[in-house]
């Protein structure tokens, strides 16, 4: 971006918004918005507390377990749907409903099924993340050129080899894109799940700070969470870039 003939470095807009936040915060116009500098100080103090560390660990644990299940199940169903017309017809409608459905509404039901604990949160993460992984994997597998599969068969690939060495690798760019979008949704899932269960992890802290109007800690928590979600997404994107070169030349 250039402004008045000067090249403005990236992320500069973020700085502008940070400055506006600071000014609004210092003016004291809204007690919900403390100055950004205070929030950052609170964030540094927060991450050193045992409460936060325990909450972060619980959250990360639920998130990772849910994501592993979502990736394994999502890729498996996606490959099945991409390869079998019957499976595609049978499952397609459900996947498309769930990918766009407001899943938060289901969490209370999950609480009844799985109790007020971590299991519910894990299931929420799974349900938030899995559908987009299914859809992207399916698209990737359907995009594998038929000749590549015929090549594998004609050179004597077994079924397992065909999937492991050809189909999954050829669909990798789409699968990774699905996982990246799934991770973003999974972060939403873990927070929403914990907020609704509201007695564990990050959800408990959110609940605590917002109920006590401890806005500095509340915003600190939010910023840490946003940064973590963006960081994860960027990490997967960098892996994606490594295989991107062949998405166009398959």
């Amino acid at each position, binding site marked *: 971006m250039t402004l008045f003939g000067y090249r403005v470095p990236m992320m500069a807009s973020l700085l502008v918004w940070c400055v506006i936040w600071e000014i609004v915060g210092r003016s004291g116009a809204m007690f919900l918005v403390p100055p950004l500098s205070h929030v950052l100080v609170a964030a540094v103090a927060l991450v050193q507390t045992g409460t936060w560390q325990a909450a972060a660990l619980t959250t990360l644990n639920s998130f990772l377990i849910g994501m592993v299940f979502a990736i394994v199940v999502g890729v498996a169903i996606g490959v099945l749907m991409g390869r079998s017309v019957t499976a595609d017809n049978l499952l397609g409608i459900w996947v498309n409903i769930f990918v766009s459905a407001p899943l938060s509404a289901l969490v209370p039901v999950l609480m009844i099924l799985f109790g007020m604990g971590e299991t519910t949160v894990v299931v929420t993460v799974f349900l938030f993340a899995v559908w987009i992984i299914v859809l992207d994997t399916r698209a990737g597998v359907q995009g594998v*050129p038929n*000749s*590549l599969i*015929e*090549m*594998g*068969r*004609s*050179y*004597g*690939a077994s079924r397992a*080899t065909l999937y492991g060495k*050809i189909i999954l*690798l*050829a669909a*990798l760019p789409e699968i990774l894109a699905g996982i990246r979008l799934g991770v973003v949704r999974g972060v939403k899932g873990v927070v929403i799940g914990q907020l609704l269960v509201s007695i564990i992890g990050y959800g408990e802290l959110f609940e605590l700070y917002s109920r006590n109007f401890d806005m500095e800690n509340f915003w600190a928590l939010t910023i840490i969470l946003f940064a973590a979600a963006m960081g994860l997404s960027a990490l997967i994107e960098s892996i994606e870039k490594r*295989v991107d*070169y*062949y998405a*166009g*030349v*398959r």
Partner: protein
Amino acid sequence: MRNITAEAATAATKTAGAEIAVEVRGICKMYNEVEALRSIDLDFPAGKLTTLLGPSGCGKTTLLKIIAGLIPATSGEIRVNGKTVTGPGPERAFVFQDFALMPWATVMRNVAFGLELKGMGKDERQAIAAKYIAEVGLSGFENKFPHELSGGMRQRVGLARAFAVNADVLLLDEPFSAVDEQNRRKFQEDLLELVEKEKKTFIFVTHSIEEAVYCSDRIVILSRRPGRIAQIIEPEIDRSASPDAIRRDQGYLDTVEEIWQGLKHYVD
């Protein structure tokens, strides 16, 4: 040039006494209601390059893929070296129209892939692959990826992969159709050298009459759907001459002309 009618084809090959590598017996193929091939009987002599030529939609690629064991025939039988074909096998190797290279693998890994699937050790298969990479003229490109190569070079990788598995029969499905004209000519010349050197049976599908006459020992012309054998021609061209001399040779030009006259009425 020798023109053998379809009826006399089997008899002619038998009197010639040549060894038969691939026998096609009564092959029919139906795609739902569409009849793609109707009772094809054909012999492919060992060590020769036989071309399947015909208008688009005549089922020549279908016949090649049936021989490869990639698609099942509705009825009829394929025998390779006397054994009935039930699926793909190590005695046949396929070269694909769109190359079918793995974009995530280097030239070396692509060429060695057939051997990798056979379970051969890494050093051994790479040594074999290196030999064929050199033979198709790609030395120095071992560690390149397919997207870094031109179309012609990519098909050379496809050809090297087929050679590397040391199959008796090489099946080439319009291998040059995605290669630009200048590279195609050079590639055809190189292919003839390799045919001479490798002593394998080649079955070659093309829609280019010039390519068929230039490369083939025998040309099988299929009619439009349902595909049947319309004509079998053996262009008797002196292959020891230089490529440019062959392309100006009267026999070559006459054969091209005759095939064109036969195929002309299929073009609308």
